[in-house]
Every structure is written in structure tokens, then in C-alpha cells.
């Protein structure tokens, strides 16, 4: 059912591409614009922007590392505050300090990448480079659904791979609850076992729903912010200047909050499934 829904979504996106191309100089488009194709790999403007974000993160981290020492520089104390904060919330989600320390890099990658990608539109001049046909060379990476779906798949599939690598049978037993069949002693136990199997199926569907909701939340918030700024600018000629400013401010705030929410939810999902493996019944 979900596969057909995803296929349908892909079809819809392809149709949207045609509509956007037919529309001409439309600013807002659901799919991102293809720039070059290397084999079957499409390099879109949001992929280019994501590479630029990665480069920016590397530069930022190198800047923060410079002159880092016992007496912290301003950059160093900012990064240390972020890392300490995430270490403590990871400890809540995963249970112990060692596990929190082990999984910290993944979540720091999420938070830095998403936070910087969400703020991509406020980098001056970069967003104004235009190609022939009205498309821009760069596009806010998280306002492309492919990017957020990719992030969500990495998060959810990653959590399953991690859980399977620790205790494969216990993790699978959470979804295929066949162990209850062996506990049948009475008629009511049989009903109970059926119910447990049904709950297991629901959990499997829930995993796919997590991917969709995680990706749609990030995409929807960032894309809506962008559409709002464009719409305000398009109302009349005098609304192009001061009027979008509060909405841009709101967009910056929402960008940070959504980066935090994505990381926090990923943390809860991953921490929940890994913590359950160490619990004894």
C-alpha cells in the first residue's frame, strides 16, 4: 500500500515538473531543477546547494578548531555548548553515557547540516544566480522533498541497522511477534497471540509512517516559509521591500526549531529501539 503511495507521489512530482516547465518563469516549484546529469545521477540545484552547505560546515568547524584550547574562543564555546546540550539529551534517550558518546557524531551531523541548510536562503547573493529559463543555480536544500526523504531514510533505516547489529533476533521479535504463539495455553492466549501479531504489523506500518512524517514535516515547514516570502513579494510592487522581513525572520526561527525537532525525533526513535534491546523482561 505504501509502495503504491510512494509511486503515486513520484508520478505526481513528475507531473509537477511538467507543469512548472510549462509555466515558465515561476519562482516556486515543488521539484528541483536539473543542472547536469552524470550518467543516471541527476545533479539538481538543491544537491549543489547541499554540497555548498557541507563545505560551509567544514569551514566553520575548522574555524572553530583554530586557536581552540583551555581558554575557549567565542566559536569554541558556542560549539561546546551545542555538543554538551546534545550529549545530555542523548543520554536521556539512549540510557547510558557510553551509548550517548557513541552515537553523538551522527546526531551532530544531522543538526549542523539541517540548521545550515535551512538558513541557506539568507546567504547574500548566492540565491540570486540565475540560469537560462528562470531557475536558480542554488536552492534551499531542505525545501526539496528528495533531500528530506533521504535524511529521514538514513535516520530510520540507520536505526534498524544499528539495532539489528546489536541484537538481531530481539529486534525482529518486536515486529514479528511470533514468540507469543509458543505461549498459548488457553483459548484466551490464542486471541492474545493474534492481537500481538496484529500489533507487530501495525509497528511495521508505523516505521514507514515515521519516514513520511519526518520528511514531510521538515520539507513542509521550510517550503511553506519560502512560498510565503515569495507570495508576500508578489502581492504588489511596494510589498517587495520591507514587508517580507518579518516572514524571513520567522523563517529563520522555524529553520532552527525544525532542525532541532528533526534531530530530537530521530534521537527518540533510535534511542527507543536501542534502549528496548537492553531491557530485560
Amino acid at each position, binding site marked *: 500500500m505504501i509502495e503504491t503511495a510512494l509511486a503515486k507521489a513520484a508520478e*505526481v*512530482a513528475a*507531473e*509537477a515538473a511538467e*507543469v*512548472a516547465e510549462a509555466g515558465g518563469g515561476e519562482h*516556486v*516549484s*515543488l521539484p528541483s531543477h536539473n543542472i547536469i546529469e552524470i550518467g543516471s545521477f541527476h545533479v539538481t540545484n538543491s544537491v549543489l546547494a547541499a554540497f555548498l552547505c557541507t563545505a560551509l560546515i567544514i569551514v566553520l568547524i575548522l574555524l572553530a578548531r583554530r586557536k581552540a584550547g583551555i581558554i575557549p574562543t567565542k566559536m569554541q564555546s558556542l560549539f561546546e555548548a551545542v555538543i554538551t546540550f546534545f550529549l545530555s*539529551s542523548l543520554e*536521556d534517550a539512549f540510557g547510558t553515557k557510553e551509548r550517548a558518546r557513541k552515537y553523538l557524531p551522527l546526531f551532530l551531523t544531522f543538526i549542523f547540516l539541517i540548521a545550515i541548510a535551512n538558513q541557506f536562503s539568507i546567504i547574500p547573493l548566492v540565491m540570486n544566480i540565475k540560469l537560462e529559463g528562470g531557475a536558480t543555480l542554488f536552492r534551499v536544500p531542505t525545501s526539496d522533498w528528495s533531500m528530506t526523504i533521504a535524511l529521514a531514510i538514513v535516520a530510520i533505516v540507520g536505526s534498524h541497522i544499528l539495532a539489528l547489529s546489536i541484537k538481531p533476533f530481539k529486534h525482529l521479535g518486536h515486529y514479528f511477534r511470533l514468540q507469543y504463539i509458543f505461549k498459548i495455553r488457553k483459548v484466551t492466549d490464542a486471541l492474545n497471540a493474534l492481537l500481538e501479531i496484529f500489533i507487530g504489523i501495525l509497528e511495521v506500518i508505523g516505521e514507514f509512517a515515521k519516514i513520511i*512524517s519526518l520528511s*514531510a*514535516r521538515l*520539507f*513542509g*515547514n521550510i*517550503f*511553506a516559509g519560502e512560498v510565503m516570502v515569495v507570495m508576500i513579494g508578489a502581492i504588489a510592487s511596494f510589498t517587495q521591500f520591507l514587508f517580507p522581513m518579518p516572514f524571513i525572520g520567522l523563517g529563520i526561527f522555524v529553520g532552527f*526549531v525544525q532542525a*532541532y*525537532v528533526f534531530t*530530537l*525525533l530521530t534521537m*527518540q526513535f533510535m534511542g527507543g529501539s536501542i534502549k528496548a534491546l537492553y531491557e530485560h523482561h
Partner: protein
Amino acid sequence: MKLLAAALCMSVGVITPAIAEGMIAGKAMEAMGRNPEAGNAMFPRMIVGLAIVESLAIYCLVIALIILFAA
């Protein structure tokens, strides 16, 4: 017709998430006011709750966008 569908989708779909978000934030504030030391522990949980409720509104937004740009 498409515009009407998108507008209805957003305006009707946002009613219940708005009520739910108000309730979550209000209750969290109440709890934080009663027990200020636990505020730091409550805040991330409140954000998670808000985000999960918000996803309902976001589904409406995505459907409205699909109606507007794709359907």
C-alpha cells in the same frame, strides 16, 4: 475550484492541530509554573509533542501543495 479545494484543505485541516497545540503548550506552561525545576526536563518533551501534532497540519499543507502545483 482547485484554489477553493486547497484553501478548504488548509483552513479545515488546521483547526484541530491548533486546538491541540494550544492545549499542549498551555498544559506544559501550567506544569512548569507549578514545578519550575522540572522545566528543563519538560521543554524537549513539549517540543516533541508539538512537533508530532504539527505534522497533522503539515500533511494538510503537503496535500494543499499537491492540489495547487500537481493535481
